[in-house]
């Protein structure tokens, strides 16, 4: 299955945000939901199970100058096996313009047994853009060893590299469950907060959560491992 | 540094630095200025283009840290001093030195040695050289940097790429046979310090035997006997360092003027 979805937001000139384009294709459907303040809220609605290996899903987001968008999803997505030898792919490309805000807070990605999945996000931020970007990965359904999954996040801030990370789990990622990478934790994720109005705070670690000020901009990465999805969410709630 | 090796009663509290005893242990092998009434025994030393780096090595428990603390007291008002320690160094140690008025923690850098203390001072000296550079960057030009090794054995010595002079510290409690055993520290260090002489009667160490063996091993190189309990500023060792500083200043003339210490 192939799908392309597109979300374009513009400031409406009255302190609010208008969604000038909101287009989805099964299984990648977008629904605007009631809004608070000047923020446009959109939910991703999975129109089919999956993604299944072989699916190629793309989402493009553009947040115009001064606009504010929050994206959630209604349920976790579960990467499943599909055609033999095929890979499922979910690519998100986001551009956040000057003075704009994007909060990307979807539900978890679950890498089911036998899956082969690539989640790829590329985000371009203007110098005074604000971003919350959360990725959560659950390695297998309950009691299950995951298939192969890679979560790749690439963020540029004001034209400079801010964050590049690829977390790989599963049979083709040597040592992924071992003490150098996840230490047996089935849930892991990160929350990137880019906010030029917030001063950078020094790094801290509490349990299995670290707050990491990044080098390339006014940004902090919260990174965590956890025994389950619920605990992970408590670690990565802004 | 492990100031726990310092006998607590020998450490002045927050009072000003205690002057050396009226009759310090006197050793004619060490060139130094004789104190005269009304005359500062330590005329201002010539400043050098870069700090003199003096390594202080020796076995675990021989009193390296106590000697460093004593030298810090001796030079407190005289030299711009920094310390690099390769020993396990805790914030408690730093607090101890600050409370004792010995040295501002900003003038101390600790180097992790990956359980290989001799490697860090002899074979792979980069981290120590970095620490020396960082001290100068943090607190300005220095006259003297003491590089304390982690406690090791008799075979450990400093690289000439790291220090200009090295002092090897052994103690009488380690047995009066130590100088006879030799090893590069005992035989080749620029100064051998035989420490804790006050304990000699208690541990049955014969200082004459140690002196004889040290001379046999070291030829013309100097050896000093020391008891920091009786001499909390390690006067004889401090005098030896002053002498070496004068040579060092002649070898490394000052090309840029620096402010007062």
């Amino acid at each position: 299955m192939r799908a392309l979805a597109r979300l374009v937001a513009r400031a409406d000139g009255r302190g609010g945000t208008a969604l000038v384009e909101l287009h989805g294709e099964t299984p990648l459907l977008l629904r605007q939901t009631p809004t608070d303040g000047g923020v446009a809220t959109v939910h991703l609605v999975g129109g089919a199970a999956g993604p299944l290996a072989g699916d190629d899903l793309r989402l493009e987001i553009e947040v115009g100058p001064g606009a504010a968008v929050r994206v959630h999803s209604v349920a976790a997505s579960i990467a499943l096996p599909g055609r033999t030898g095929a890979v499922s792919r979910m690519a998100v490309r986001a551009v956040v313009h000057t003075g704009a805000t994007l909060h990307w807070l979807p539900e978890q990605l679950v890498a089911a047994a036998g899956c082969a999945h690539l989640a790829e996000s590329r985000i371009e931020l203007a110098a005074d853009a604000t971003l919350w970007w959360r990725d959560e990965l659950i390695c297998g359904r309950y009691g299950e060893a995951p298939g192969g999954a890679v979560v790749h996040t690439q963020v540029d801030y004001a034209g400079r590299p801010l964050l590049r990370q690829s977390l790989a789990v599963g049979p083709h990622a040597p040592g992924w469950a071992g003490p150098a990478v996840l230490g047996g934790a089935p849930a892991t994720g990160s929350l990137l907060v880019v906010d030029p109005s917030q001063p950078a705070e020094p790094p801290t670690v509490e349990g299995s959560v670290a707050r990491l000020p990044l080098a390339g901009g006014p940004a902090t990465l919260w990174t965590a491992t956890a025994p389950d999805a619920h605990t992970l969410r408590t670690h990565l709630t802004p | 540094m492990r100031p726990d090796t310092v006998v607590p009663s020998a450490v002045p509290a927050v009072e000003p630095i205690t002057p050396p005893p009226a009759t310090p242990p006197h050793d004619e092998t060490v060139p130094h200025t004789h104190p005269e009434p009304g005359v500062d025994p330590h005329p201002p030393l010539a400043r050098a283009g870069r700090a003199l780096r003096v390594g202080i090595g020796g076995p675990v428990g021989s009193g390296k840290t106590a000697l460093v603390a004593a030298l810090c007291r001796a030079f407190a008002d005289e030299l711009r001093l920094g310390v690099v320690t390769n020993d396990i160094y805790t914030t408690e140690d730093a607090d101890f030195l600050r409370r004792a008025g010995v040295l501002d923690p900003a003038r101390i850098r600790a180097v992790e040695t990956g359980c290989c203390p001799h490697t860090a001072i002899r074979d792979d000296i980069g981290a120590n050289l970095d620490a020396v550079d960082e001290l100068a960057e943090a607190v300005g030009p220095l006259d003297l940097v003491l590089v304390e090794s982690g406690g090791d054995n008799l075979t450990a010595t400093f690289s000439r790429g790291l220090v200009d002079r090295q002092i090897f510290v052994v103690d009488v409690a380690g047995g009066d046979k130590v100088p006879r055993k030799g090893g590069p520290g005992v035989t080749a260090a620029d100064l051998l310090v035989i420490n804790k002489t006050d304990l000699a009667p208690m541990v049955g160490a014969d200082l004459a035997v140690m002196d004889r063996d040290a001379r046999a091993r070291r030829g013309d190189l100097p050896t000093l006997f020391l008891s920091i309990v009786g001499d909390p500023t390690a006067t004889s060792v401090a005098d030896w360092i002053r002498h070496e500083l004068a040579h060092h200043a002649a070898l490394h003339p000052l090309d840029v003027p620096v402010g007062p210490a």
Partner: protein
Amino acid sequence: MATPSLLLLLADGRFPAGAHAHSGGLEAAVAAGRVTDLASLEAFLAGRLATAGLVGAAFAAAAHRAAVAETVGSAHPARSARPSDPPAGSAGRSAALARLDAELDARTAAPALRAVSRRQGRALLRAGRTIWPDARFADLPQKPGGAHQPLVLGLLCAAAGLSRVETATIAAYGTLTGAASAGVRLLGLDPYQVQALLVGLADACDGTAADAARAADDPPERLPAAAAPLADIHAEIHATWEVRLFAS
């Protein structure tokens, strides 16, 4: 053409670049109770090789590529320059290395790991400046903490006449041997068994180096970015310790 001896010299743990004082995160993993024996050390090394090992090797290879860029035409007469080839000359090298520096920062989320990489770079540079005074070190970005270690390694290996894949091999191998040696010291493991474990990882190390060397042809933003959450968490915990035996 480089002699194999230079490859061995630069890969040797006794090369004075401070490797003995770095455990590659193992000291913190041991303290957390995550590495206790040979089996957990092996899992640690495999994970480290696939993450920090791959990234470090790719950046060393990319820095090597930048260092030898001006000789691309003559060294490879069979192919013409590609659009992604870094520009030749000192200015081109400086720009390429500055870009690599920023890209590696973006792959190193933990400030403690950024500082360690720069500290190790400084140590390697100190050795390199004495041993290969003609290397292109002046083109490294001037950063307060020093240049990242893989960048210095790439320039050093280029100056020593080593190939790109040899450069990547030294980098990948170093991420294994430093931590393995720390394991022997911290856990009292049998050194023969630990060497046997390294033998078992040799193919993976060579494969990682080959992947890294190939990746160096990609534009900098596409270089490997393999992440390890525990590496970041361990490094920040380690940095807060009052007493450390290892610098990382």
